[in-house]
């Protein structure tokens, strides 16, 4: 699998995702500086977590205007899969590749902890190695992860099956008690209509071995490797 990771000023999970991609796919991703104008030909483009441009203005808003994003958007529209994690999800929303918005967490504070997620569907390139409805553990680490969309957009996302992950209890029960940030419908991640672009707040790349506290993130990358084999 050939992948490219877009690096913005103050991206800070770029190394983490590169380590995960190399560990699981066997090949190093290309690291692409935001000031470039074209992404090398890739099976997968990743927009990593961090605080691009310090989260100034609005998380992801300035990164969405970076020179590289024109090519990311055009490649995504032409079908190249894109994965945005945390700040990457915010950038995808700000750049219009995914619907909705990510607002400040319900209780106004940054939150870093493991959460449980239901994998809503396992027929996508990102989740094909998970079981349908499986509950997985990924960590969250964000200040602005409170997913919001207008009622029509939300209905459309739900009807189209665009919800990728929902915050849940360890047993897979979805309720407000296990919603860490106030996201509508406990949404932790969504796809575009074509299921080729995924944005999610939790960090699969942070739980990829037992010593880090779990390895539920591995299957996402194995899914992608299998999809591009």
């Amino acid at each position, binding site marked *: 699998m050939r992948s490219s990771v877009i690096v913005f000023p103050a991206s*800070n999970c770029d*190394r983490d995702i590169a380590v995960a991609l190399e560990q699981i796919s066997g090949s190093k991703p290309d690291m692409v500086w935001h000031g470039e104008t074209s992404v090398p030909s890739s099976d997968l483009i990743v927009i990593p977590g961090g605080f691009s441009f*310090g989260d100034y203005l609005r998380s992801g808003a300035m990164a969405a205007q970076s020179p590289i994003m024109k090519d990311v958007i055009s490649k995504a529209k032409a079908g190249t899969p894109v994965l945005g994690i945390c700040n990457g999800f915010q950038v995808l929303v700000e750049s219009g590749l995914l619907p909705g918005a990510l607002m400040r967490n319900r*209780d106004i*504070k*940054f939150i870093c902890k493991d959460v449980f997620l239901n994998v809503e569907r396992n027929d996508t390139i990102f989740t094909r190695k998970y079981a349908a409805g499986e509950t997985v553990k990924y960590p969250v*680490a964000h200040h602005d992860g409170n997913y919001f969309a207008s009622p029509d957009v939300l209905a459309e996302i739900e009807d189209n099956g665009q919800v990728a992950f929902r915050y849940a209890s360890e047993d897979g029960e979805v309720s407000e008690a296990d919603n860490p940030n106030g996201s509508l419908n406990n949404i932790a991640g969504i796809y575009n209509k074509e299921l080729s672009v995924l944005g999610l707040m939790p960090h699969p790349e*942070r739980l990829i071995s037992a*010593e880090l506290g779990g390895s539920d993130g591995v299957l996402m990358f194995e899914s992608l490797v299998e999809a591009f084999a």
Partner: protein
Amino acid sequence: MSEKEIMNNEGGMSQKDLIPEPVEITDALIAEHGLSGDEYVHLLEILGRVPSSTELGIFSVMWSEHCSYKSSRFHLKKLPVDGPQVIQGPGENAGVVDLGDGVAAIFKMESHNHPSYIEPFQGAATGVGGIMRDVFTMGARPVANLNALRFGEPDHAKTRHLVNGVVAGIAAYGNCMGVPTVGGETNFDKRYNQNILVNAMCVGLADTDKIFYSAAKGVGLPVVYVGSKTGRDGIHGATMASAEFDDETDEKRPTVQVGDPFTEKLLLEACLELMNSDAIIAIQDMGAAGLTSSSVEMADKGGVGFTMNLDLVPQREDGMTAYEMMLSESQERMLMVLKPGSEPAAKAIFDKWDLDFAVIGETTDTGRLIVHHKGEVEANLEVATLADSAPEYQRPYTKTAKAETITADDIPPTNNITETLIKLMSGPHLSSRRWIYQQYDHMVMGDTVQRPGGDAAVVRVHGTNKGLASTTDVTPRYCYADPYEGGKQAVVETWRNLTAVGATPLAITNCLNFGNPTRPEIMGQFVGCLEGMGDACRALSYPIVSGNVSLYNETNGVGIPPTPAIGGIGLIDDIAIQASLVFKTEGDVIILIGDTQGQLGQSLYQELQTGDFAGAPPSVDLSTELKHGDMVRRLITAQKVSAVHDVSDGGLLVAIADMAIASGLGAELRAAPDDIAAEAYWFGEDQARYVVTVPAENKDAVLTELQTAQIPANEIGVVSGSDLIIEGADSLAITQLTERFEAYLPNLLA
């Protein structure tokens, strides 16, 4: 005229003859600069003339307690700073310790107390930013942040505001930098009501052959300014941090700097990128006293002079004077001396990261710091004098009187051990710190293998199987009651915490927070704590490689308890073989290592029962600590134990409760031995103790090994079920205990 000409048009005149315009001296002006009358006389003697305004400002900050250590230096010299593992001890931006295989840990802790009380968010944020710069200026990538926080009593009117602000500030800065905040400690005590303490520690990793220092050796080299622009913020911050607070403290808000973690992240990446080349001869961050202290230190260590033209300094505001620029503490700035000719390549890197890069002067053979601004000479001072002339005081001190030993008979007894445990675990001292550390990204960088909440945090040394353990500790109430024993205990507790995860302790940094040193009893606390720390470091071969002193933590004549916060680091050879405090398996046997006399003086139990702390703190026997700790580490390395926790605040039952809460598993415990009062047994804070669990089949072997080594060890119970059951006492569901343990801080602060 070009800048070059401005700086060099001294022509035939001797450099000494470029005398700046003297300032009009008044007593008020001298006092405003934090100088005593004697110190001003000293200044005149050195200079041989009346200083200019800029020069007075430069002396003021260089001679401030914060920069000069004038009250503490004499005693600091007595601390042990050497060891085979030490690459760089105190005196540089941070200490450097060898981790083997070509990798070094670079670390330091620093206080940001005064600013954090005045403006908690920015004060704490810039404290974190400053300590990270100290680490990456030496070539290390920061890999772990920790902190040590002291606030006033929980229901004090300002506490909620201060905790919220400080924690949010630490989070905002560290999280944006992408450096995990993995550990720390937080105390609440009314003696910090008017003077909170915010101590930030950073640990970084560098290649041993790529460590950068601040000595600007060589003449005719470009002096380069990089990073943020200079503004008027933080002028006299170092002087402010060297004075007591009074009722007008809130008016000092303008002296607090404002942090920009985004710029610092760019500065980090740009500096590390430049450090991959051989362009840098010397580098120093602009922290306290900004351009003044960075230029003086670099020039002094290099044995050169600096000529600088402030017209070339990137400025955020119009009309800044030389005085303001030399004293500004604007954040996220570095001063470098580069190899001539390397400027274009270096500038290209800083351009890429959208940071200012300006050649503002050059090194000279004059040995003088000469500052030009708008065509005038604003300062002309001999570097060596400036660096070495700061007063050094051997302030008078009175030793703290020894307090009486407290026994169980001195304290109203509890008739319900279980209820007492719940009260302790759900109160300000021992309740869960989750509310705090969940606001810190403690997993970014993908190497955190032991997260906050254990004895020590562990991050993997990237790309290897080694683990770097780190912790911060001090027990201020012990230090107040007996500075010498408290100083020992602070060092020893970090050493035990590192040991408890299986690490070999390597070295410490410290943040020495005390009251007003001109009061003999405060100076007595300082001297006592340092003697204790020094003895502990020597006994444990655990040297001090960096640190900082924060005095005048005092308001209207009332000082804080002595708080020598210690930050320790240790090395785990293989992270597959480490320990944690989590109970692992039902049926594991619980063993208490170490002797229990039931020392209740200064214990949390005593405060719970009597409303105050009194008497002598637990005594620390250093050879016993060494013996017990080395044994525990051997047991971990030999994989004979399944869980380990050191016994500290709150005593034995609290330690066991921590292990139960962390795992959700309960324990069945034997009653206290007959020869000791039950409350003294369960809640005494005797030192040199660990609770370990061992699989049942290892029990006899482990007990025999401990007995052979003549280390007191007793089987005290077994991991079992989901309740804590003490023989002869009420049982307690771990879920219930956990709920109370977790509820305290959210209820207090949310």
